[in-house]
């Protein structure tokens, strides 16, 4: 049975980027599925993929991660350098599978 943890924005905001990604990958390697209230920036997503690649072995095949398409930042977001990052689901590749996805809906099954 897989457990799903809903991680609040506050929990991750207390961590810097590296701590945040370490936390996520550690949980996922333990078999946990995480739903992040506030997702990762594109750079963090790429960094998480790199970190995942280093951890892949015969027992750990990597992660499944799903977030929504980035919306074009608004004028104010550009000025203040703040990007919208929306809800993201991350889990071990062998436990979670995305079965449908479009702009607004992510449908995943948990094994």
């Amino acid at each position, binding site marked *: 049975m897989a457990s799903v943890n809903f991680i609040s924005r506050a929990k991750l905001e207390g961590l810097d980027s590296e701590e945040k990604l370490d936390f996520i990958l550690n949980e996922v390697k333990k078999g946990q599925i995480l739903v992040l209230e506030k997702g990762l*920036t*594109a*750079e963090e*997503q*790429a960094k998480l*993929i*790199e970190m*995942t*690649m*280093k951890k*892949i072995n*015969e027992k750990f*095949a*990597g*992660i*499944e*991660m*799903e*977030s*929504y*398409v*980035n919306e*074009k930042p608004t004028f104010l977001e550009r000025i203040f350098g703040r*990007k919208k990052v929306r809800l993201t689901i991350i889990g071990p*590749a062998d436990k979670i599978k995305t079965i449908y*996805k*479009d*702009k607004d809906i992510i449908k995943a099954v948990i094994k």
Partner: protein
Amino acid sequence: MGIFGRLSDWLKNIFGKRHVRIGIYGPPNAGKTTLANRIAQDWAGGLVGEVSEIPHETRKVQKKGGIVIKDGKSSLRIDIVDTPGIATKVDFHEFMEYGLDEEEAKRRAKEATEGVIEAIKWLDNIDGVILLMDSTKNPFTQVNITILGNLEARELPVIIAANKIDLDGSTPATLKSAFPQHEVIPISALTGANIDLLYKAMLRKFKRR
């Protein structure tokens, strides 16, 4: 990039010989090497790399220089950078389904993970990107979203190419509506269909600004 790479880039910059580097990015099996080979054949001669139906065929970044794309009076000199497919998972069992033995499959998986890292690192060394997607597949994948997000964050010019339009079940229109803020060109890297449209878009998009 090592110090010598950086030094040589700096020298080339000074002498104005540093070409525009265009990376071909996308998920495994999208047809990146097929496209790189076609571009090389059309404008320089020779091939860039091996093509295979088995994912993660390209596991190291491969480059080809001296490519000059022309359209009338307009021309663009580029280096093509063919990158390993980016994935969030690599399962060696998948390669065994293609008939590789276990040892080979595990080695391929290990190299594939290193290739993904190299592809991501190369985002810092390129001037523009052709993001290649398989138009028979759902475009809303994390890999596509992550690559695109990184290109936007780096403000790199990007053309999305919706590949494999020669196949039944190809829906390039889905891709266009998925990424309305980007230029999407439906192509077949295999048959060459619409490839002229891609070249015109490259001349427009990647001309040094």
